């Protein structure tokens, strides 16, 4: 094994595997593989008084964006006070970057029957 090959096996390969594992576990996440600086993003669509997907699983560091597609305003507010959107009128968006692993339940404070969860791994 040449010195260069050893470097690939010892450093680059595990890194690649780690990236692959992260992506495989999170189908909703669109991560850019060729740009280390670009953070992962994910989307929650608010449609017909429903957060979709209702449970979203993302890796740490992901920015989740909620978009209201209804003719009625909604909010996205963490049940535990972690994040709180302003009132989102039609087509308005709210983003929050999850920097810690955990389970984050949230709801619409205007229509509290609307609930969702972001799982950060």
């Amino acid at each position: 094994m040449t010195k260069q090959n050893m470097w690939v096996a010892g450093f680059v390969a595990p890194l690649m595997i780690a990236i692959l594992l992260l992506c495989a576990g999170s189908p909703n996440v669109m991560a850019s593989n060729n740009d280390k600086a670009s953070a992962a993003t994910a989307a929650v669509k608010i449609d017909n008084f429903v957060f979709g997907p209702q449970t979203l699983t993302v890796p740490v560091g992901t920015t989740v964006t909620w978009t209201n597609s209804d003719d009625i305003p909604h909010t996205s507010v963490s049940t535990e006070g972690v994040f709180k959107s302003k009132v989102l009128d039609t087509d308005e968006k709210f983003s929050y970057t999850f920097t810690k692993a955990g389970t984050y339940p949230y709801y619409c404070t205007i229509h509290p029957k609307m609930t969702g969860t972001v799982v950060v791994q």
Partner: protein
Amino acid sequence: MPDKKQDLIDQSLQDLNNDGVDRRGFLKCMAWAGTGLVWTMSGGIPVSRAFAKSGGKGSDNDAGKGADFSFVQISDSHIGFSKPANPDVTATLQTAINKINAMPHTPDFIIHTGDLSQLSKPSEFDTLDQVLKGASAKQIYFVPGEHDMLSDNGEQFLQRYGKGTKGTGWSSFDHKGVHFVGLVNVANLKAGGMGSLGHEQLEWLEDDLKGRSASTPIVLFAHIPLWTIYPDWGWGTDDSEQALSYVKRFGSVTVLNGHIHQIMQKVEGKVSFHTAMSTAFPQPAPGTAPSAGPMKVPAEQLQQVLGITDVNYVVSGRSLAIVDSPLAG
């Protein structure tokens, strides 16, 4: 047998109304917006009628005759809403006010059961004020809807419409022997829940009713229905049973709500429940659409839907204290 059920319903409604007003006639001539209700108190029994189409069928203009007094309920004006379901909600509110002003007997007051605005914007409240200023009845009582306390926990609503009220805007008053209580069930809503009155307000309500004679007619009004209509859409109030337990001993209790943008009513013991139409846009009957969002329909179709919805929640075989109909434009 397309109309059999409807016929039965019409029949029973007609019997219940027993007021010489043919319900189908109403349904045929009603418009979907610009509606409101006239309430007359006669011997402590509230009776509602549609505002009349001027000189219209059914002697609607007699609404105030022989009554001790009358008041009007309007609801869900959503000033600021401009989506296809109704691009001009200010105009339809104005229509409602015009109807009130055209009544032969000026109502003693108006009750607005919430969702004055779409987004709690000062400009929306300003527009509402401008329109309401033209109402013949100068006294207007308000309770907030969830749209009126969007960004500031209802601070602005309280300043404008809740002077002298308690907590998030609840209060009571007496009018000609009838005790009215305005309740707020849109504040501090919990994830996964429906409307909520909260412990503090419930305690206040119990205290407010304590010591009143059981023969005092009681009118409770709040934005979200105080009876469970459709939990999946949050059309109910989690702790309403507690509130209703305090009014059980009274001989006549009327509960007026908005929020669901359609007429529904039921009678349980001595308690009559009723929801009003919106002045802005209709919403679908429970479970008939993916969500409770604004419904865009031609006026004729809407009339049909409202008629059917009304029927499902009518308790037949007893004399209803309240009956209502939307009015023609």
